[in-house]
């Protein structure tokens, strides 16, 4: 018996199939090459400004001579506290607190608070001394401050344009004198 006409075409449309094999071949070559040459640990450097020698407990830190040096801020790191010493004032930023790093309990500081304080200082500095570009900063620490804490402080400084860090290690008594002198000048 003849089928009734429905008005629809029953022709099957063949969609052309993409030949993905050449793409696969290309990928099979590229992926091993890239895997071999990939470096997942990227190494960079922090260029340090020339450092001054250690100040002995008996001596005093030599004060900056030029105007630029006088305006140069200092980050003072002791075992108990983190300070920011600037031409305007010396302020306590954060007390040291224990933090776990790689399974070890170590001293750390509130680096976000340091970032905020440096931001405020940068605005004040640009307003008061717009013609003097200040990029240097000194990290002044006691003997046993960990290297990673120093690097973290350097990173924060670079965020605010203080990208020429110098490291200076001094005895605790010298740092105390620097903090007291700065606080007195406020």
């Amino acid at each position, binding site marked *: 018996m003849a089928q009734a006409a429905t008005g629809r075409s029953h022709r099957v449309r063949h969609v052309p199939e993409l030949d993905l094999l050449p793409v696969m071949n290309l990928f099979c070559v590229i992926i091993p090459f890239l895997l071999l040459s990939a470096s997942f640990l990227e190494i960079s450097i922090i*260029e340090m400004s020339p450092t001054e020698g250690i100040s002995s407990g008996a001596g005093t830190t030599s004060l900056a001579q030029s105007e630029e040096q006088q305006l140069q801020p200092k980050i003072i790191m002791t075992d108990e506290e983190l300070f920011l010493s600037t031409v305007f004032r010396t302020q306590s930023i954060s007390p040291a607190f224990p933090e776990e790093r790689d399974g070890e309990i170590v001293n750390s500081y509130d680096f976000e608070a340091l970032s905020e304080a440096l931001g405020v200082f940068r605005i004040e500095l640009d307003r008061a001394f717009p013609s003097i570009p200040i990029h240097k900063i000194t990290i002044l620490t006691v*003997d046993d401050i960990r290297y990673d804490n120093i690097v973290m402080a350097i990173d924060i400084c670079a965020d605010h344009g203080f990208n020429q860090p110098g490291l200076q290690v001094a005895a605790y008594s010298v740092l105390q004198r620097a903090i007291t002198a700065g606080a007195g000048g406020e």
Partner: protein
Amino acid sequence: MSNAPTKRHLPLMLGYKKNKASVRGKDKKVSLNLTSMIDMFTILVVFLLKSYSAEGQIVTVSDALTLPESRSEQKIELNLEIIVTNDAIVVDGEPIVFVDETIMSEGNPIPVLVERLSDHLEYTRLMRGTTDEEEMKVNIQGDVATQAILLQRVMSSCALAGYATQNLTVLKVEGGDER
């Protein structure tokens, strides 16, 4: 009596453009669905291309230490390498100073290290006839737990020996800035 088709009855089941062989599965074409694999490979290639560095890695990080992480994006250059751990100070692969309490309690340049670095600079000067600014740079690899006093002693030793620029080698983390 069963109605199941037998080999003998197969020709009766052939449809349009089908022959006996195709029905028996002898020339059956198996096509793999590669689309999902291509998707995966595309993601992998993009990721690998992003982490690809045409310059290569010119520095070997010592297994004895863990470098600190930093957002610095300053590219590393091939310079004299000094490795500082809490056990020893190594210059160009050669242990120069073993770290003890005496080293950690003083704050001046370390004489043995200054001598070794001066010799290296002098050797470079003799080999090349002259030394420029590029040769007066050192890369310092320090362990995260290295104490500031040790780092500072190494840096002041470098300065005294004539290496005016000291670079701290760090592991780059994302969100960096061009110093």
